[in-house]
């Protein structure tokens, strides 16, 4: 049982508790436990960069400094957090100026950071730390015949690409018995905060994603980022109203999919808290099997 130092981020404590809980449940099965880092603060997402790059780097420097007390690794599940934290960690080592900035400010707060922390995305950990065979062996509820669209969102591959192949999710979908669809929008933008700030624009992006998923006959979309989940699921109604479409595609987390395939109970995985039931779709597999 390996222990992962974990940075949940605000939204995993908010709308997206399901992501957090399912990540824990998945860990129980494949062999990791999440250890939330002490008194972490918000990563500032994309908004903080728009107010002050300096302060954004400082806020994240604090997180890194805290993380470093226990381990040289910090696992993150949220795309935005992953981007901000990894960008900070990267720039700390690359820019003397930013290093100076962070070091001095941390000193002021009586903290230190040595630049050693490696920021990892949960997907990358799951994909790289466990042999595919091992994972496949743990699948007890193969998701036979279910067509799933893998959706990475932006932040896993940009600006700082996580060290995983571009079909990591596809491979995970396959080993849980389901069929990955060729989802060319898999790393296209979900609209981010635009969906909230500029619905007229944001919803357009959501629609584009959904319509490809539908065109490729995906019954389910799995994501690796809470904001993507919110945008794709919550706003399907709004999209349908705006473009009079009839999208009804459940959007769940890759951790929920894996967890379910590996036999975790829907309750543990908080399956059912999504507004468009992904559980119903997952259940179809058993029907098909029986």
């Amino acid at each position, binding site marked *: 049982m390996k222990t992962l130092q974990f940075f949940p981020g605000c939204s995993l404590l908010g709308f997206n508790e399901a992501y957090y809980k399912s990540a824990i449940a998945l860990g129980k099965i494949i062999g990791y436990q999440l250890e939330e880092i002490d008194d972490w603060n918000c990563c500032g997402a994309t908004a903080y960069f728009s107010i002050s790059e300096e302060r954004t780097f400082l806020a994240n420097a604090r997180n890194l400094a805290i993380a470093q007390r226990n381990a040289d690794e910090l696992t993150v599940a949220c795309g935005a957090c992953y981007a901000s934290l990894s960008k900070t960690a990267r720039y700390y080592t690359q820019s003397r100026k930013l290093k100076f900035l962070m070091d001095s400010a941390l000193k002021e707060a009586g903290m230190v950071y040595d630049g050693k922390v490696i920021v990892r995305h949960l997907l990358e950990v799951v994909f790289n730390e466990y042999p595919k065979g091992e994972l496949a062996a743990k699948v007890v509820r193969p998701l036979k015949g279910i067509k799933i669209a893998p959706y990475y969102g932006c932040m896993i591959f940009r600006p700082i690409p996580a060290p995983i192949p571009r079909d990591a999710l596809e491979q995970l979908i396959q080993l849980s018995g389901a069929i990955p669809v060729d989802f*060319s*929008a898999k790393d296209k933008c979900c609209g981010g905060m635009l969906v909230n700030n500029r619905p007229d624009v944001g919803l357009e992006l959501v629609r*584009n994603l959904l*319509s*490809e998923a539908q*065109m490729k006959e995906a019954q389910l979309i799995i994501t690796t980022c809470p904001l993507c989940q919110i945008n794709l699921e919550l706003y399907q109604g709004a999209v349908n109203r705006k473009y009079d479409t009839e999208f009804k595609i459940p959007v769940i987390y890759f951790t929920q999919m894996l967890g379910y395939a590996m036999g975790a109970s829907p309750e543990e995985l908080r399956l059912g808290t999504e507004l468009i039931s992904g559980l119903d779709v997952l259940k179809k597999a058993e029907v098909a099997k029986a």
Partner: protein
Amino acid sequence: MKIGVYICHCGTNIAGVVNVKEVTEYASSLPNVAVARDYKYMCSEPGQNLIGDDIRQYGLDGVVVAACSPTMHEPTFQTAVSRAGMNPYMFQMASIREHVSWVTVDPEEATEKAKKLVEAAAARVSLQEPLAKRRIPVRQSVLVVGGGIAGIEAALKCADAGKKVYLVEKEPSIGGHMAMFDKTFPTLDCSQCILTPKMVEVVRNENIELLDYSEVEEISGHVGDFKVSVVRKPRYVDSTKCTGCGICSTKCPGKAPDEFNMGMSKRKAIYIPFPQAVPLKALIDRDSCLYYQKGICKVCAKFCTAGAIDFDQEPDHLSLEVGAVILATGFKPFDARRAREYGYGKYPNVITSLEFERMTSSSGPTGGKLVLKDGREPESVAIIHCVGSRNVNDNLYCSKICCMQSLKHAHLLKEHIPGVTVYDFFIDLRAAGKGYEEFYRRVMGEGTIMIRGRPALITDVPSAPVEKGKLVVVAEDTILSTVQRYPVDMAILSIGLEAGEDAKELARTFTCSRTADGFFLEKHPKLAPVSTPTAGVFIAGACQGPKDIPDSVAQAAAAAAEALAMMGKGYFELEPYVARVTEELCSGCGVCLNLCAYNALEKDPQTGLTKVVEALCQGCGACVAACPSNALDLDGFKTKQVAAELEGILA
């Protein structure tokens, strides 16, 4: 030791600033100086005679001329002194124009500096030794590596001049990439029609020995006398017997993707690369041959009336001796898969410019028909420039040919499919060349839609009914500043040129360096564009950098001329600056050995001491500076000579 010193006024160029008289007086006071004079123009006929007369009269054995820079007139005065019977390397120049009068304001300072330089030169001359340029005989034969248009041209030129030419081609046929093209821009004459005669001439010319399906293994020796070992790969067909009738191919059951058609069609396991192949001989591809894979078949042997099939053929090793080498090893087309955003390999109707060339060729996989993978004729086509070029993620350089190639394709499309819509996406359109701009206008006139913008994406996901079943090219029209989606049936990627796979290998074999992007480095970008730092090795065609056909041919001729000039002279003259070993001092430590960039130093097996191979030594002196026991020294730049110059300056 008697030295004559001559100070030039160079009109007022020198005398205007430097007090020539003063310098002359100073010179005459220097040790070993028998005579010191000044004159208006030393380089003039009377000026030169002045020196000659003194040499005879005073029996001078050293001469210093203080005038312009040696780069200007050293040769002039060297000939002058040798005409008077003095060794030209007993001569030294002091540059008091470029390095003094033209760059100094204060006449006093200038005069002082001039004195020092003269003193230094005089001190140096008194320690200089007579030297003679080294002459190396040059063999009357050339090795041409690469049988593309550049290689063919160079080979023919040298052969026509009556020299023996070995043309080495690693493919089973010569012709290179040009043989794959259908039409050539801007004149649109058929590529095969202008190339084939030259290919045939190669085999017909008795001065050329074509080594097809062969590669250079190793090269030793030096300019004028290279020893080359070449391996000839087995064709498993006896070329001397094969008539090229092709019956074997028709009967052969083994199939493989046809390289010549970019894998768009199949060829047999025993095959002739293409109808106009030279030599027109069959060969067997082991990987797809049933006999080699399963041990059965041998159908070809049964049907070959000439009995040419030879399953046990072995690689053939030849060794050649040549005076000069011309590298014309060409380029490698950019692998379009690397441009992920365009989905080459994922979308069947996204093709490369080279595939398009084969498609338009009547001998190509579609018999000259421009069709989609499902056989339909495209109604709309996008042509994308700069694929793999001008991009920090691939190659920074411009591939030079893609603009014209794309325009040509636009024209061919309009010609083959009346009413087809052609979008041509370019960043900057570079039509610099004779008749190129005119061709550009012509293509625009034919109704090709030119869009200034580099597409960011090709997708098959429609966002509107019109896009259903189409490829959608997403690009910003940077003139209109609007981002648009262009639905098309086919997209042609105009792929750039890259240095050949074996360029690195070849560069090591022939000790010629490469630029950062992997192409061969010329000796001087402007004044020695087809020479390499290695004397006797020349480069031609796209192996030196992206190039179109006219440029390649011109360069090939230039390289041939360089080689011929060398052979015509019969010998190659090397400057006398050579490293020498004083065996008494050499400890055989070998520090110098791997410092030499030309392998001119070797350990003498008997004595164990360092030995200099004169012919290879280029006289850089890297070894001399390194020798811990001062056993090495450099003729013409001996430590004592440079030291004397130093002391002269510092005296």
